[in-house]
């Protein structure tokens, strides 16, 4: 098991392994996103209270969930960086931080677009909304620290420490609706035993979420792969790769 982990965490092996993985992921992603878009925009019934404006849920909820998930993925990378000094984790950390920031921004923007018709205001200083904003600042902090430090490895370790201190915010975002009485929707979807949402609305939402996840994985893989090439640019295998791809072009 550990051997396997070690094998795939070598930059070179990861590079070639992920190359085989990507086309498969893209295929599944395309299938899912087409299905979910159809379900979300056409087949799901309009909400009896909100009309069609509820359809923004299909962007808002997946982005909001991803904003938390990506942070947790970053936390996992951070542990690998600090404890095992895994190079791949260093690269992963810096590759996914901006994606997480963008999901967070998307959740904030779609949420406030949705909030206008629902609550009559773009923005309200309640716990859910504010802790999500704090999450954005945590992402930006990690990115700022990564950029402020010249040396890649030192930068990754410093950012990992920051990321781990910040992980306390994740439960706050998630439980804020229960701990404080806020404007924001309580758990609607995630109560799996009795989801308080119509099944025709729910299924596209869940597939959309999986599509978002795949999208995240694909984009991360691209970013990680190009970072690997820069990282290992002095090594023989990258040099071989470059010469062979040049040869192909001719």
């Amino acid at each position, binding site marked *: 098991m550990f051997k396997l982990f070690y094998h795939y965490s070598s930059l070179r092996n990861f590079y070639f392994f992920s190359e085989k993985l990507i086309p498969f992921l893209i295929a599944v992603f395309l299938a899912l996103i087409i299905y979910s878009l159809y379900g979300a925009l056409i087949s799901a019934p309009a909400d009896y209270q909100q009309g069609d404006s509820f359809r923004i849920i299909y962007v808002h909820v997946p982005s909001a969930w991803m904003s938390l998930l990506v942070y947790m993925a970053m936390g996992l990378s951070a542990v690998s960086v600090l404890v095992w000094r895994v190079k791949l984790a260093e690269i992963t950390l810096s590759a996914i931080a901006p994606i997480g920031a963008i999901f967070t921004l998307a959740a904030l923007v779609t949420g406030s677009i949705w909030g206008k018709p629902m609550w009559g205001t773009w923005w309200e*200083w309640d716990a859910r909304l*504010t802790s999500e*904003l704090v999450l954005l*600042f945590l992402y930006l902090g990690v990115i*700022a620290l990564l*950029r*402020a430090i010249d040396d890649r490895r030192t930068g990754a370790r410093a950012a990992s420490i920051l990321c781990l201190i910040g992980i306390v915010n994740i439960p706050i975002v998630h439980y804020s609706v229960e701990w404080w009485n806020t404007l924001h929707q309580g758990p609607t979807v995630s109560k799996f035993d009795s989801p308080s949402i119509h099944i025709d609305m729910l299924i596209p939402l869940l597939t959309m979420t999986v599509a978002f996840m795949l999208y995240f994985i694909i984009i991360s893989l691209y970013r990680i792969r190009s970072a690997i090439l820069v990282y290992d640019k002095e090594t023989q295998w990258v040099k071989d790769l470059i010469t062979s791809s040049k040869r192909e072009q001719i």
Partner: protein
Amino acid sequence: MITDTHNWSTLFILVRRDVLKTWRESADLLYPIMFFVLVTILFPFALSPETLVLKSFAGGLLWIAALLAMSVSLENLFKTDYSSGALEAIVLSGVPLLLVGLAKAIANWVLSGLPIIILAIPLALSLGIDTFSLSILLLSLTLGSATISLIGTSIGALSVGLRSAGMLIIVLALPFFIPILIFGAVATSNSQTGLIPEAELYFLAGLLVLAVTLTPWATASAIRTRLG
């Protein structure tokens, strides 16, 4: 002295260097802005998230956040140039110190005043301010922030090279900033009740004119003194 074209181009080069220096440290550009936003979002937490309360204090709150963000940004104005000896080198280059002082103030305004004014727009709207009051807020911020940059530069030059100059600058400068804060905040809150706060805006404009004429001299002689 300032009118001669050689001096204008020197001024431009001095400002450009400072902006470039900050730009290089790409994240630096974001700090005053982030500080401003963070301070603004502290208020609803610490006071009361009720829209009505927030709205009636919005002008004052934004003014305080802007003032603090700008005060904190003053610290980096001379710090690295002094510790690296670059300030000494600039002085020895023979360029009139008046220009150096003016350039520092302009660069500070471009790098912190201007972005703060721009960011005040969405923040003010999120606090529920109306458009007329917003325009008064922006006008008062523009006049006020320029004055803050000018005065702040003089004080920054005075405390250059002292340990924890950052703290010192803020503490020395805040008393000067209080009148600006009062008139800026009063202008905005008056406008929220529909009044046109002419008197306050004229006062802010007057302070700016005073600052433009006096502070570059103060900065120049402060640089001179502190290098000795």
